[in-house]
């Protein structure tokens, strides 16, 4: 996959298989293109070369209906993108009812179950700007799960959470993964990657420089650049 912004190739040939039921953590410095990769994968950006394959189908083919493809994806962004004019419950039930045509009552039931799971059942009627950042992010995850996606794309979902809440989200993600969810997530939290991911991929200079099991990539990286990145992260106290 290649993505160019204003003559600069942010991604210049990224190749990253994400197996079914697996959790792939994307790590890399700020500006290395993690968000860009996820935006390309969710077809919010058009790739400048290469392919995105979803269940073997080339979804970057311009003849493919992008709306149809996005219905099979769940995306949670770096910044909260809840709809401020809709209540928490309406945020979560919007896509199931409007896009997937599920009955309202059923969607509401499911949404309440999801909200209970993330510990925000009592906030169903609130508006997003009344929630803390961490609460908003958990609702965003619930909203993405509500469409029962084939793949969950998470962009630094824990970066806004209190340490005690990170564990909660981690458990949620692990639980979702155990139910067969395929997850591709960008993260700065190496501890999180180590605990949840099956595969860690280090993105640098527009390519996947190194990828493998978390123990190997995070514990004993082959590439000097990965070592340097990780030592900087350790200095910052994030491992």
């Amino acid at each position, binding site marked *: 996959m290649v993505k160019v912004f204003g003559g600069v190739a942010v991604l210049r040939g990224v190749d990253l298989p994400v197996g079914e039921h697996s959790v792939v953590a994307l790590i890399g410095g700020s500006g290395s293109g993690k968000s860009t990769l996820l935006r390309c994968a969710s077809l919010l950006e058009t790739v400048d070369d290469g392919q995105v394959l979803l269940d073997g189908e080339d979804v970057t083919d311009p003849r493919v209906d992008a709306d149809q493809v996005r219905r099979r994806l769940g995306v949670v962004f770096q910044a909260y*993108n809840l709809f401020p004019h809709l209540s928490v419950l309406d945020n979560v039930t919007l896509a199931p009812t*409007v896009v997937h045509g599920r009955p309202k009552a059923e969607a509401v039931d499911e949404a309440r179950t999801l909200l209970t799971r993330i510990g925000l059942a*009592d906030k169903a009627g609130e508006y997003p700007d*009344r929630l803390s950042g961490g609460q908003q992010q958990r609702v965003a995850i619930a909203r993405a799960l509500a469409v029962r996606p084939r793949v969950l794309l998470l962009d630094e979902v824990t970066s806004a959470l209190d340490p005690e809440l990170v564990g909660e989200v981690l458990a949620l993600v692990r639980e979702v993964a155990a139910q067969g969810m395929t997850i591709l997530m960008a993260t700065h939290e190496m501890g999180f990657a180590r605990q949840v991911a099956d595969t860690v991929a280090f993105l640098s200079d527009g390519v996947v420089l190194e990828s493998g099991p978390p123990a190997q990539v995070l514990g004993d990286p082959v590439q000097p650049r990965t070592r340097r990145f990780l030592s900087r992260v350790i200095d910052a106290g994030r491992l």
Partner: protein
Amino acid sequence: MTGGQPPGAGLPGSGLPGNDPRTRTSAGPAAAERHPVPPPSELELSRRAWRRARGRRSTVVALASTLLFAAVAYLVVTRAPGWPRVRTTFFSPTVAVEHLPEILVGLWLNLQVLVVGGVLVLVVGLLVALARTVRGPAFAPLRILATTYVDLFRGVPLIIVLYLVGFGLPALRLQGVPTSPFVLGTVAVVLTYGAYVAEVFRAGIESVHPSQRAAARSLGLSYRQSMRIVVLPQALRTVTPPLLNDFVALQKDVGLISVLGAVDAVRSAQIAVGQTFNFTPYVVAGLLFVLLAVPSARLADAVTARARRRQQAGGLL
């Protein structure tokens, strides 16, 4: 009341959590049980008393300065050498009372144009704004058409549009083209204001952060669904204050349909002036338009203030 409280007297308890207004307003019944709001401390009570006292003081100051200003203005005008003459030709109570009924009847026509025109302006403005923002090569003609319309009718003075529509259209003598000055005047007003309001709507649509569209599209919503469910509701909130301001402007501009010969408030006043050689009817009509505009202007202020408060509340998070 308790304004004389020595500072710091109520310090114990003032450091309690739970005085945060957000906890108070947003907590549901369940949360309220978990965190009962403690009774206000002495310190808080003295603060509230001080704020109340300050509020009363500002009211008195505002009242006094307004009265002073009015008195000065009154003296300057009434001592002007030409004042007696101006008073009889512009402010004659007898002429005012005599011609008020027909001016009011005329104003009723203005009101009708205002209501019908106002609704149509909203519809035209929204449709044109959507046409200008729609993407895709197939819609290029639509975009060009909408842009041309906006450029044209924002540039041409309303009075010229009134002449062209009011006298040009009927002159074509096409079948089905209305000839009533009421209809033609409304059309002209809608054409001009539709262009302004389209730009207001477009600005509102573009002010919705792109990440909102991204979030909507990533959920699988189509372009139309994202627009209808996510972007437009947020845009409408933003544009309500400027729209109300445009409405205030429209209220006085509906008086211009008199140039087409429609017997509205302005035209009625003109006829009365012609009969009496006294300008008081114009003053009466003018005052009536002001009376009409004041409530909307205050409403616009209130809505703007509320929008600003909401924004600030969001900014604290």
